[in-house]
């Protein structure tokens, strides 16, 4: 489907603003377990370890600013900015309690580490290392903006190439794939030593994993191919260059690019831009095609969130349980060549096993069917519900742990 709204490149440059001095961050634990020393009113230094996770898919969590833990619940920790950390000797400020969390964090050296040790070290620095270590025959770096409304990849390639190179050098150490490919939008000119270049039409959903793998390899086999977003390479690069835990994140927020501390609340971005929201608007964490609508503005930016978008009231017809009119528009537009018309009706009427037979597991939740549906049916919602019933992982599920 050709639609100008699906173009994934911008003609005008969108420089990345670096945000410092955020008054408060809220860090979501996800599936990580907080350390026992993390308590209210404890002073923490930027980079101090706050929560851990056993899986290589989830990086550990660190304080992203210097400050004092203001609030702590089962799902998040809030840190309020309070100037510089104490020196090691500990000339204490009055109210806050000082523990080892307040000690400034020392950079780690990656020299001489073998593959396993390097992976472990990076995980402790907050990197989800699983995609990098996955054995494969082809390693693709996806340099397309993942979804419409995200604008950061061109800027990263233009301005932050040294960071990406640093990240890529670690990738080469973690993964011994015989071939590395940089998937660039048409007209893009970046290059990495040791990686081939493929130009791809910058049109959604070409930026999603399976369609992109098909374009690059020409085959519909994803088993021996690893695909990583440029975003993740950039995160790896930040850690590689500093040797410090991951505390920053690049994201497109309301059409502008930022390099902001992890956990920066949505409200802070609104304040910076002087953006006013009305009742009935939607605020989306992630892309407009696959993201999550949030109900409160204190939600902090997670490592997996590369965009915050704003959908004005009434800009989209309401999605309701309207009957499918069987027009076939979704069948034409599905990049996975599924039959969303049948899938959604099976899910709607609770025939989940039929969904499995119609290969629901192949669905990548790109949102194209819901975008085009003239009956305005909540297609993705049906598919997620059916996947949940069948015990298949959904896109949101995979993000929830982060």
């Amino acid at each position: 489907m050709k639609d100008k709204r699906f173009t994934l490149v911008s003609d005008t440059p969108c420089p990345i603003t670096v945000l410092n001095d955020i008054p408060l961050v809220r860090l979501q634990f996800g599936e990580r377990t907080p350390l026992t020393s993390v308590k209210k009113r404890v002073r923490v230094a930027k980079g101090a370890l706050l929560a851990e996770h056993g899986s290589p898919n989830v990086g550990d969590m660190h304080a992203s600013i210097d400050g004092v833990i203001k609030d702590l619940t089962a799902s998040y920790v809030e840190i309020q900015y309070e100037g510089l950390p104490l020196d090691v000797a500990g000339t204490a400020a009055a109210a806050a309690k000082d523990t080892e969390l307040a000690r400034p964090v020392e950079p780690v050296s990656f020299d001489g580490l073998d593959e396993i040790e390097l992976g472990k070290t990076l995980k402790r620095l907050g990197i989800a290392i699983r995609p990098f270590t996955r054995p494969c025959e082809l390693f693709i770096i996806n340099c397309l903006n993942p979804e419409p409304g995200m604008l950061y990849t061109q800027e990263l390639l233009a301005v932050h190439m040294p960071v990406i190179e640093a990240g890529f050098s670690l990738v080469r150490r973690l993964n011994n794939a015989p071939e590395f490919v940089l998937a660039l939008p048409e007209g893009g000119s970046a290059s990495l030593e040791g990686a081939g270049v493929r130009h791809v039409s910058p049109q959604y959903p070409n930026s999603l994993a399976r369609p992109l793998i098909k374009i690059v390899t020409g085959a519909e086999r994803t088993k021996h191919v690893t695909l990583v977003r440029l975003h993740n390479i950039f995160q790896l690069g930040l850690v590689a260059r500093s040797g410090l835990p991951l505390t920053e994140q690049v994201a497109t927020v309301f059409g502008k690019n930022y390099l902001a501390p992890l956990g920066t609340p949505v409200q802070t971005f609104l304040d910076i831009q002087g953006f006013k929201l009305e009742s009935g608007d939607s605020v989306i964490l992630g892309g407009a095609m696959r993201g999550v609508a949030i109900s409160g503005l204190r939600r902090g930016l997670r490592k997996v969130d590369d965009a915050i978008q704003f959908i004005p009231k009434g800009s989209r017809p309401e999605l309701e349980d309207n009957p499918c009119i069987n027009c076939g528009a979704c069948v034409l537009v599905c990049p996975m060549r599924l039959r969303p018309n049948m899938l959604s009706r099976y899910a709607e009427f609770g025939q989940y096993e039929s969904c499995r037979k119609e290969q629901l597991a192949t669905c990548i939740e790109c949102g194209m069917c819901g975008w085009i549906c003239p009956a305005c049916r909540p297609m993705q919602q049906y598919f997620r519900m059916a996947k949940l019933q069948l015990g298949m992982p959904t896109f949101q599920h995979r993000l929830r742990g982060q």
Partner: protein
Amino acid sequence: MTQGKTFTEIRPRFVVDTPPFMHRGYTVNAMMRDMLIALAPAAAAAIWQYGIEAFRVMALAAGICVLTQSLWEKALGRQSRVFDGSALVTGVLFAFLLPAGAPWWLVATGSALTVILGREVFGGIGCNPLCPPLVGWAAMTVSWPVYMDPTAVNLSSSLLDPLIRMKYYGWTALSQGSEMALLLGGQLGGLGSAQIAAVLAGGLYLLVRGVVRWEIPAACLAGVLITGAVFWRFGPAMGIGPASAPPPHLYLLTGSTIFVAFFLATEHSSSPVAVGGMFAYGLLAGFLTVLIRIFGMYPDGAPFAVLLTSLGTPMFDLIRAAPFGGKRS
């Protein structure tokens, strides 16, 4: 009053909804509006040709369809969908198949049957296995063939029904060079469906707007032309009198072939959704149209051909590419 903020005081309140948060913006209502625009030229031509008679039939059919659907939904306690415009469009489509002089009770009964038997008994829009206007048309044609015969109910008209002439006197009975007159609607038939040029213009508008996909009309017309050409060329060798197998273009210029191919065969719910299935469906519908015209007892083959072909839609839907990865279930 409680100390803290109550829920209603929290401002602003955001809509928490399901993705995608973008929409193409083309809804069923817009689709039905485009259908009405596409039907407008033929409706105008029908009124120009038959006067208030044609308007009477179209208005009555559309009104009865809307009324029947709203009463049916009320009686069954279903959510009303009458405002999506599909009942209105169905009514006009049904009226296009009727002769301009159809008596009011025939129009009313047919319209009610179109909505109830054609669609609502199966669950409403999107659930019908057959094209609703064709169901109504078939019920009327079988029940009151005389009142559905354009020649019989339009006695005052000076026009002729070319289908009858071709059926009983052979295609050579049509005066030479009458193609242009036929194209411009100079024939008796369904009040809208016989306005060939106007219907064709409306059909092309539907294609341009993307309401219907080009595959079905193209395959349908190709099916008619190919089968017609085969019988025209080889008919005498097969023992069919040369007068019974007209040149293929006459199939398109007479009766409701064009109207059915663009407006009824493409009815979303009763037609296949995958490209391969669409071609097979259209070709079969075209093939059956010619077969019914030559061998059947009904002079206009297209409506019954599409009704029959629609029965095979679930089969045609099996003609499809395998999902990503090439693994079939």
